[in-house]
């Protein structure tokens, strides 16, 4: 299959303008004749649904939570980037573009990233006009901070609740369209299949999570904005309901899945305390601006931290990366934390944690300043751990946080199935092999507010779409398949709970396809996962019925898909014989332990095609070229 990225063949600065000009327009009077399905109401989904509704299309929007406002975008704390250069510190669209391409370790498509940097300007304008209460300076103008090691201050934030406020802005715009009758919202509806008719995406099959009814919805096109699949690791910073089901079913219907092994592990999360743990909580990365990360020099040192003298502490990031110190990128920080814990120098219960110590910062700046900067985060930490971080250093450990991989899309955000658009974290995105802090929010909103509304119109105007409704046999058969799948799950009537399987799967993926990977480990995982999956289908117990509110059943379906996805992740990780960004293969590193890219052989997007249950998926490559930013070894020394 030829993967055509459809990037305009003009200089990068003009590309998006050119594309907008080339696109066909839908006559305003005709817009209301088109039905559009948007699955997902996070930043990407809500902004797309609201804007399309406002343009006059008939939109149906779905989410699995009880309200669109609860999509997991709500949890983003840190901030959103934009190349506004309000700080006059040398930022520009090109610099944001450059940083993002470099941060992604040269595995992203240049033209997409450039457009993203351009649109970042409009996003901030839009959000402020909607009433997002971004932090202000005393003069009343917007404040910025630097984030994730960027050398300019370009991150806009609303306390530690940036994602929440941006999402509420989009949600409110969405509700406005709901009231106007332009968008019909289906909350507590989970998409369980995509319906493809004559090669085009024409609808979805959902389960009403309250009544359990299987329902079909037809439309002229489908947009998936269903977020990331980080929950494949069981423990992650994602919400419990985050799932891969929507994109996985699309994959099985023919959409290519790109770079599944590119996952991001965030260094500053609160470590696991026990078996029962259900969820990991992220602590904003901004903590690394003032906190110092260390472990004891000696293995198995169980003294309380304040009894460990200065010269017996190893500030390993400062030691190894004197220039960036504690502010090295996420993947570097995470990997190093894992390394010291693997050496047996980790702290806290289970030995999987490192200290993030504010003692020196409090001494230097005073408790008040620290309180002002991080008060919320300290409170949150204390609430969860019962320890006071003003007195005892925090303990942190990396956790799965973001998935760069996702469905492959072209420059117009359309997948390989015509009429299936993918936005936000669900697509393979503009972040390459690693995401810079504060740029996922930017991408979700760029996709939803400013890209899809154009490209969707172009698709509708340039294609003659037959009318279809849900009586079409393709809907009937998809519904039957979904029902059959559910019945299969319920009929196992085994002895083990869904969670126990998910936990086991998660550990497997975390150990072998997490922060660092080896060919050997991946091969082992590829052997283990199918075994476990088989066991799942033999021994899982899903209580209750299908025609009712049944949370066990919801989970069971999601975990079934994670099993299949996990395998694809490992396959992808195994085939990519290089280290890049979040994908660290231990075999490929420089003598001092840095990721070693192989641009000659792997400078491409790996897009996998589903070929049936019994066949291995086929690999397709979209070669990446870099005309504007020269690939170079990342170095944070």
């Amino acid at each position, binding site marked *: 299959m030829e993967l055509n990225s459809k990037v305009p063949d003009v200089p990068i600065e003009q590309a998006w303008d050119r594309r907008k000009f080339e696109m066909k327009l839908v006559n305003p009077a005709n817009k209301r004749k088109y039905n559009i399905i948007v699955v997902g109401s996070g930043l990407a989904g809500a902004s797309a649904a609201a804007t399309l509704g406002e343009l006059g299309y008939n939109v149906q929007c779905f989410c699995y939570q009880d309200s669109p*406002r609860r999509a997991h975008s709500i949890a983003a704390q840190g901030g959103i980037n934009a190349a506004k250069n309000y700080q006059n510190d040398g930022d520009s669209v090109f610099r944001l573009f450059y940083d993002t391409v470099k941060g992604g370790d040269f595995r992203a498509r240049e033209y997409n990233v450039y457009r993203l940097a351009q649109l970042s300007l409009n996003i901030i304008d839009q959000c402020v*006009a909607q009433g997002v209460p971004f932090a202000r300076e*005393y*003069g009343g103008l917007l404040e910025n901070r630097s984030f994730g090691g960027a050398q300019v201050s370009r991150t806009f934030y609303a306390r530690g609740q940036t994602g929440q406020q941006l999402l509420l802005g989009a949600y409110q715009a969405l509700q406005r369209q709901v009231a106007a009758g332009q968008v019909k919202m289906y909350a507590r509806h989970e998409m369980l299949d995509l319906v493809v008719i004559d090669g085009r995406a024409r609808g979805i099959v959902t389960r009403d999570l309250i009544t359990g009814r299987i329902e079909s919805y037809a439309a002229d096109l489908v947009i998936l904005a269903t977020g990331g699949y980080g929950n494949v690791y069981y423990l992650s910073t994602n919400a419990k309901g985050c799932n891969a089901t929507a994109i996985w079913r699309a994959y099985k219907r023919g959409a290519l899945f790109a770079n599944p092994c590119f996952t991001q592990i965030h260094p500053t999360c609160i470590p696991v305390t026990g078996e029962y743990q259900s969820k990991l*909580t992220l602590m904003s990365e901004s903590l690394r601006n003032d906190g110092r990360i260390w472990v004891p020099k000696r293995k198995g040192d169980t003294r309380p931290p304040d009894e460990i003298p200065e010269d017996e502490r190893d500030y390993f990031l400062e030691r190894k990366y004197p220039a960036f110190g504690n502010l090295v990128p996420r993947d570097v920080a995470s990997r190093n934390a894992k390394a010291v814990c693997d050496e047996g120098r980790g702290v806290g219960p289970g030995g999987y944690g490192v200290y993030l110590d504010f003692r020196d910062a409090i001494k230097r700046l005073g408790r008040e300043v620290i309180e002002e900067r991080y008060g919320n985060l300290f409170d949150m930490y204390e*609430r969860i751990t019962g320890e006071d971080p003003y007195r005892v250093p925090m303990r942190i450990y990396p956790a799965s946080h973001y998935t760069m991989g996702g469905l492959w899309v072209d420059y117009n955000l359309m997948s390989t199935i015509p009429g299936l658009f993918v936005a936000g974290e669900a697509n393979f995105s503009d972040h390459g092999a690693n995401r810079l802090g504060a740029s996922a929010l930017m991408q979700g909103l760029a996709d939803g507010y400013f890209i899809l509304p154009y490209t969707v119109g172009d698709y509708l105007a340039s294609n003659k779409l037959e009318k279809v409704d849900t009586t079409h046999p393709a809907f009937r058969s998809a519904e039957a398949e979904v029902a059959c799948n559910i019945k299969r799950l319920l009929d196992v009537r085994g002895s083990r709970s869904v969670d126990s399987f998910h936990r086991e799967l998660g550990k497997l993926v975390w150990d072998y396809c997490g922060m660092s990977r080896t060919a050997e480990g991946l091969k082992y995982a590829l052997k283990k996962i199918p075994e476990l999956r088989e066991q799942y289908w033999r021994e899982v117990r899903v209580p209750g019925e299908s025609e009712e509110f049944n949370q066990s059943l919801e989970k069971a379906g999601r975990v079934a898909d994670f099993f299949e996805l996990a395998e694809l992740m490992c396959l992808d990780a195994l085939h990519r014989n290089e280290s890049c960004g979040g994908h660290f293969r231990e075999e490929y590193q420089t003598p001092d332990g840095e990721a070693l890219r192989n641009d000659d052989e792997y400078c491409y997007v790996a897009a996998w095609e589903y070929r049936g249950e019994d066949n291995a998926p086929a690999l397709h490559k979209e070669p990446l070229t870099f005309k504007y930013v020269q690939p170079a070894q990342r170095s944070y020394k």
Partner: protein
Amino acid sequence: MNLILHVWRQKNAKDPGRMVRYEARNISAHMSFLEMLDVVNEELIARGEEPIAFDHDCREGICGMCGFMINGVAHGPERGTTVCQLHMRHFKDGDELYIEPWRSRAFPVIKDLVVDRSAFDRIIAAGGYISVRTGSAPDANAIPVPKENAELAMDAAACIACGACVAQCPNGSAALFTGAKIAHLGLLPQGQPERDRRAVAMVVQMTKEGFGHCTNIGECEAVCPKEIKLDVIARMHRDYLHAAWTGRQKPGFREDQPAEEPMAGNRR
């Protein structure tokens, strides 16, 4: 530690429901309340019974999905905390806990501890937004906002729509929730043009949904996990009365408010 739980079990909206007694054994103090329920549920599943249904998603206190009453207090005994962030170290061995769903006419029970809060979405849809066409916004720095106002707006905007205020209020009022949104938008210059219309539309919708009224009792403020202050309710009253006074808005609800009517401008 070991606990005794009395949990509201209700199969579906039609079932009358009842309290059922469970024992939670070997609970670690580090668990969150929901993790404790997970443990109970695992046991129920092992025994072939249906697990207790409760809403949750982010488990970090921000999505607003979780929430139920613990011993008659919404989100349990800790101030400024959602149940998903409530840890078992706040309980003692042998404690007896009553766990019930939010009770409000506007929040019908779906199952066990799960209720339908879509009324909140309709209140927002009635006017809890600033109308701005995508792409039509002026430069973000074109409108300065005093830092103090931005901070106050942020305080109010922190509401997670969990519904605890309604559940706790002896009158079943949604005044804190609605007031929070009215205050958030009303404190910002961008929110001024629609301020009158918003206040009336949202208050009317809130009333239509069947929420009770506010007699300034203040229990809502005490359980709000985001510590939204009663101030926002006064603001809502003020804005509503102002709108009624200026007379551009019909302050009652005899006819349905058309959703997309042109916004009446206003001074202030």
